């Protein structure tokens, strides 16, 4: 916990600087494309972007410490509101994608590890590579063509008009909008979890205590339980990272599906050089990563007390 805040500040400094290093200025795409540089200078002054960078950063940091992430230049809405709504929207997809990725990926990994080198292992490993390698936005487009255009079973794009603050998964009219983007998002984590699980289980299976257990006459089911428990910490670490990755959204998947999540908002902020919005999103996402990994560390310790002693 003690490291979380300095990490967040460090990330914010880096991202603040990177936005300004990128060519193009804030307001360039907010004002009409034929606005002159002189006009932009006047508007920049109104928004405070003509101050020295260090001063701008300190002003921004002071506001953040008071819970104020500023106002989005492009939308004129509070950044905290924009980011909050986007997070909830991405969470809706993650709530579908993550359990699916975990269950399927874990099952695949365990199955592959139980029969190493056999046909099942090769099929599962191949599928995992497939999931990791296929561009998920391309998969999204294909899913739309098949399930929305060819056979109009699911909507092609957008999110149901769900009430703000609602998860909106528990009725079909909302859920049907989530299925295709959730599948697109889940592909990569499924593949990664499958491969990581396989590697972790194989690693544990090769350890001496497993041989000892077999020598003692324990049945395979009981051995499997021990093996899976010992492999779990590694899997938890991977799952935590994948959760963080999913919460960051996928700019491309969310653009294909016009899903107003964090990825979509991030892409929007980058294209518009919306500095306050970009800083707010990056700061919040970095905090999510920090907290998620902290929780993963705690879970790992709980599952494997040896880590506590280390």
């Amino acid at each position, binding site marked *: 916990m003690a490291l979380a805040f300095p990490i967040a500040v460090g990330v914010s400094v880096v991202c603040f600087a990177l936005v300004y290093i990128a060519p193009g200025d804030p307001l360039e*795409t907010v004002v009409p*494309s034929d*606005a002159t540089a002189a006009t932009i200078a006047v508007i920049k002054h109104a928004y405070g972007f003509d101050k020295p960078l260090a001063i701008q950063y300190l002003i921004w940091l002071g506001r953040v410490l008071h819970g104020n992430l500023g106002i989005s230049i492009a939308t*004129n809405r509070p950044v905290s509101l924009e980011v909050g709504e986007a997070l909830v929207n991405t969470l809706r997809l993650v709530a579908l994608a993550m359990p699916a990725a975990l269950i399927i990926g874990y099952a695949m990994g365990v199955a592959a590890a139980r029969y190493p080198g056999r046909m099942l292992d090769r099929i599962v490993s191949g599928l995992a590579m497939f999931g990791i390698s296929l561009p998920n936005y391309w998969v999204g487009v294909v899913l739309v*063509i098949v399930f929305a255009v060819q056979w109009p079973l699911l909507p092609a794009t957008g999110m149901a008009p769900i009430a703000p603050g609602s998860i909106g998964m528990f009725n079909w009219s909302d859920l049907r909008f989530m299925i295709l983007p959730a599948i697109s998002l889940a592909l990569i984590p499924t593949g990664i979890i499958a491969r990581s699980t396989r590697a972790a289980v194989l690693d544990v299976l090769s350890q001496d205590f497993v041989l000892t257990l077999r020598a003692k006459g324990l049945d395979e089911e009981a051995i499997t339980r021990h093996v899976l428990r010992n492999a779990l910490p590694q899997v938890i670490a991977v799952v935590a990272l994948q959760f963080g990755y999913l919460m960051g959204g996928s700019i491309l998947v969310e653009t294909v599906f016009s899903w107003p999540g964090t990825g979509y908002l991030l892409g929007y902020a980058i294209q518009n050089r919306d500095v306050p919005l970009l800083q707010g999103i990056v700061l919040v996402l970095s905090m999510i990563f920090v907290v998620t990994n902290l929780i993963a560390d705690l879970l790992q310790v709980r599952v494997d007390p040896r880590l506590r002693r280390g």
Partner: protein
Amino acid sequence: MKSDSFSSNHRWLRTLLLLSVAVSAADVSVAHAQGVLKIGMTASDLPITTGNPDQGFEGYRFVGYNLYDSLVEWDLSSATKPSVLVPGLATSWHVDPNDNKRWIFNLRQGVKWDDGCPFVASDVVWNLAHLTDPKSAQYYAAEAAQASSYLTNYASSEAIDDHTVAITTKRVDSLFPYEISYILLVSPCRAKALNYNWQDFANHPSGTGPYLFSREIPHQEMDLVPNKNYWNKARIPKQDKVELFPMPDPATRTAALLSGQVNWIEAPDPDSARRLKAAGMQIITNTYPHNWDYQLNFVKSPFTDIRVRQAANYAINRADMKALLDGMMIEGYSTVPPSTPYYGHPVEYKFDPAKATALLKQAGCYPCNVVFGISSSGSGQMQSLSMNELVKEQLDAVGFNVKLDTMDWNQLLAVGRNGVDKYPNLSAINISHQSQDPFDALIRLVSTSQWAPHGSNWGHYSNKDADALITQIYGEFDAQKRTALLAKLNELMNVQAMQIFVAYDVNPRALSPNVHGFVQAQSWFQDITSVTISP
């Protein structure tokens, strides 16, 4: 008693009759319901609703001119004639005979804001301060940013009486009505009631336009409903509701239309046009003032040499470019499309690669190394990458050696704004531009006073004859004579080959077969009030 029973039955029957009439009336009104128009826009977000919209002219098209009006508006009723200015909230306007920098606008009477307040001349003065005067309580920087380009010549305004307003310009400017046409007016009553909280205003906008704001789900959907009290009775919307969806990805828009999620999409990409037609969709195109071209560097060679500029124009095979876009363009030989009233008779550099090569050799630039600043995508950039690749191929074939410097849209806009002095190594930039009005079409590209960063003349083109013509144009208040002068200017620009002319966009959109009544104007703006949707 029988009479009591009879009168009671009579009353009952009368009630029943009245009820059935009422129900029939309701049925009639339901039967006249003309559906929901669902539009997939190219915009990456919903346009702002606080007056002058963002998201480019698409914002004006679907939100700005639907929620609000300007003093002077565009005639969007015809597909066969160029769109011209017509009365909006002003019924007429003229320049003060005693001061040709002072415009008098006679306002439309009997108009009310959506909040019920009457529209009066002081509202116009209030709105102009809202956009230009930082010291005024109503000043809003975000709106000032949107309107700034159109008010560069605005000096002051005053309400002469409740129905007459005078607007003074800094310089003599016969084109001022065009500029004021982009300024949308918002209700001072609503703004004051909300204590100038513009975020609140965005959720409760009040204008005089043909639509009322119904709801917005941020980043997802905006709904507009007909304004039954609209002052222009001929343009009271015929559909029940309009739903607007931002869909920046063309594949997404196509899928949404094919799956029935929307019944109208903007700018389908040419690759999907056949698929859409095969599915029964209407693909509608029309000439409109949108020029895809290159602005040239007039400070550093090689385009300082007219022979090189002419060579570049002769090298372009516009028929091939049209084939690349599956027919979705008009071959471009000038800064404005031929349907423009001031097109004139410009020299047209028809495809002639041999002549192009000969000119390059005469100019001593063979091979001729050039660097073009282009974007990977962007509003109005059409199929930027493939089109630029084809242009490169065609120019290289005659003796140019083209290097494409690809950047993102935001960065290219910055290049355009800052001018050639900051980017001397770029020989040309490819930023398409709107040519809706004479200033945007011609003047800002060639006037010495418009050298970037003070204007849009990126390459610092300068020509005394052009500047003299421009001064005449600004001082000519007779429309016919002014059109003749503008035509001369366009012709001069062609003689000088001051751009590489390639294409005019055709504003494609795809509509479901059950969408009726749409007339595609020769304009960036469109009138959707006449559209109906059959079941």
